[in-house]
């Protein structure tokens, strides 16, 4: 029973995991020292820690994006902008609070979370109440958001120059791992526990598969949609917090630019349907790390920085073609014709 469940889960993860494996192999061929880790100033650095460090915002956003995709059958393209706004609020509260202590950072962070929830509620109201397609609804904020964040800033890129925030964005004394990695891990654990103890996963999937049927079964689709968008708002706030502490300044034009595309991509690579329904957060997390690893691998292979995007595009196209239902169906019939049978069939025979 447990084995069956595990197998079912793994079949969803085959695609992202195999891609990750291929990337690791490519990296190892390029240089065997890929996994080597060095200690600099009491913290671990190396290819893998850097990859984890660089992908932290993307991972957090892709978690929220998965939830939203599952419940609303569409994607939020305003996540990068929302993170820019929340981090602008965070920076402004810190700058105006006089002395910067752990308490003021916490207060500012909570305030930015509230702003994130408000943004989520705005998008959620359009999607849940007015029944607008999520991409269209979030296009509003996508258009206006960077300007709003610039106006909150008041001036060009305010600088966060102090000990505590650079510790959050860099390394805490006494901890050998960079703080954003730890924060991401904590966030993932919180989300995992949250999904384990609440019914949100089941309800979000139900609403995504068939909102009317969910309604008839006593689930309020409006409420669930609102909730997922608010959760995404919190994800945006956390991602913005990490991004701004990492860079030490708030550049409202460039902070987390185009990350919404990467987050949607992470959801798709993770084996989730962009049309809603069943979802796998693990897949999205692996997908997010895969994207970051892909960029870093291309850099490591000394591909021209200008050409990286084109390579990425070709990679995505190949990945999507391989995982497309038509190609899968075709391969399955081809296998049957040769008499091999699918992997699942083989497993059944053995059992």
């Amino acid at each position, binding site marked *: 029973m447990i084995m069956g469940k595990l197998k079912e889960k793994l079949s969803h993860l085959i695609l992202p995991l195999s891609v990750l494996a291929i990337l690791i192999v490519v990296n190892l061929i390029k240089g065997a020292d890929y996994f080597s880790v060095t200690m600099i100033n009491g913290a671990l650095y190396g290819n893998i820690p850097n990859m984890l460090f660089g992908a932290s915002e993307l991972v957090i956003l892709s978690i929220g994006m998965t939830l939203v995709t599952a419940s609303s059958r569409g994607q939020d393209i305003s996540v990068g902008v929302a993170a820019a706004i929340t981090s602008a609020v965070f920076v402004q509260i810190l700058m105006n609070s006089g002395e910067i202590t752990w308490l003021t950072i916490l207060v500012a962070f909570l305030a930015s979370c509230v702003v994130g929830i408000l943004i989520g509620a705005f998008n959620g109201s359009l999607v849940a109440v007015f029944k607008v397609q999520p991409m269209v609804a979030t296009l509003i904020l996508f258009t206006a958001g960077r300007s709003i964040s610039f106006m909150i800033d008041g001036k060009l890129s305010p600088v966060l120059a102090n000990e505590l925030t650079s510790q959050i964005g860099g390394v805490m004394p006494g901890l050998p791992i960079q703080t954003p990695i730890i924060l991401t891990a904590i966030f993932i654990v919180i989300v995992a526990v949250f999904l384990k103890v609440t019914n949100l996963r089941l309800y979000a999937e139900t609403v995504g598969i068939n909102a009317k049927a969910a309604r008839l079964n006593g689930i309020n689709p409006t409420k669930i949609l609102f909730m997922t968008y608010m959760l995404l708002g919190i994800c945006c706030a956390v991602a913005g917090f990490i991004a701004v502490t990492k860079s030490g300044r708030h550049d409202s034009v460039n902070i987390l630019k185009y990350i919404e595309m990467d987050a949607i991509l992470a959801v798709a690579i993770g084996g989730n349907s962009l049309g809603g329904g069943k979802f796998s957060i693990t897949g999205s997390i692996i997908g997010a790390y895969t994207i970051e690893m892909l960029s870093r691998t291309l850099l490591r292979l000394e591909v021209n920085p200008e050409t990286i995007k084109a390579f990425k595009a070709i990679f995505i196209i190949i990945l*999507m073609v391989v995982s497309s239902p038509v190609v899968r169906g075709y391969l399955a019939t081809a296998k049957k014709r040769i008499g091999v049978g699918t992997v699942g069939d083989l497993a059944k025979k053995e059992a």
Partner: protein
Amino acid sequence: MSSIVKTRKESLSNSNLLFIIASVIFVLMYAFALIRYPGSFQQFQTFFDLFSLNAPLIILTLGISIVMIGGGIDISVGAVTGLVTMSCAMLLQSNGGSIVGAMLLALGIGIAFGLLQGFLVSYLEIQPFIITLAGMFLANGLMTTIHKDPINVTNESFVALRDFDVVIPFLGNHNRLGNFIPLEIKLGTIVAMVLIVLLVIVMKWTRFGRNLYAVGGNSQSALMLGINVKKTKFCSYLLCGALSGIAGFVYIMTTGAGNVGNASGFEMKAIASSIIGGTMLTGGVGNLFGSPIGTLTLLTINELIRAAGVNSNFQAIVSGLLLYLFIVLQSVVVWLRGNGKFTIMLPSWMTFWKQSSQA
């Protein structure tokens, strides 16, 4: 009995209703601009400059509207346009460069992207968002690979084409000195206008256009009706790609330079204008006359803000608000009509786009 049938009024379809709302708001806004800032907005030149400077955006909006009517989405258009401008600039600067060659190259690149994306989306049934996102990355990456720095085209015949203005002597304004200045229109405007008329005809009266509405509205029932759903979708992406190619050539015809930042962010602007023009992302609803109106609405707002002289950040914010207004309006109207509580009838003489049936 027959007289009753004859006087029966046709109720509006969603497409036309949303189109009328968009046009009314555009007219109201332009009227407001005329009253508030008579100096600049009263000139014909200002109105046609909106067309001249933004012809590429209008063409892109047409393409995206077609894809959206078919129930898909294409976010690669801006990047493809940028790629086309850069490659055309490179070609024109090279030795054997000619205008005809550049035109063919522009169309070729556009059609190539249309073919690739159309095939992947319609025949392999991959999510259009992801594929066109990949297309955007691909076009962007290719553009920066071809050339990083801005290129100013100095090919003589091209410069002549770039500076060519169509002068309309009977329309124009007197300048401050009292001299009469005739209206000048860029060639791009004419291309855009011709495309608008052509595509409206294609979408209204050809088999492809009608099939596309059916496919976007409900692909299952379209399939039942014997429509080749895959081919129709494929053709819509192909058309959109070709239009991005044309838009790229018009872009370089207007600016005369290839630059990495060319047409960046146009995809979202085009989608926004398309939505303002009454096209719905769910598919099957839209009017191609609405698309240029949507673009012009968005541009007029920006012109108004520029004329008002406030912080330029308000441009984006007001555009967002406008989008919000339209989206909510659309959803409320469609919802009310779905419930049957709200119907709009126009007198029969106004329904020029749809002959009332005479039985």
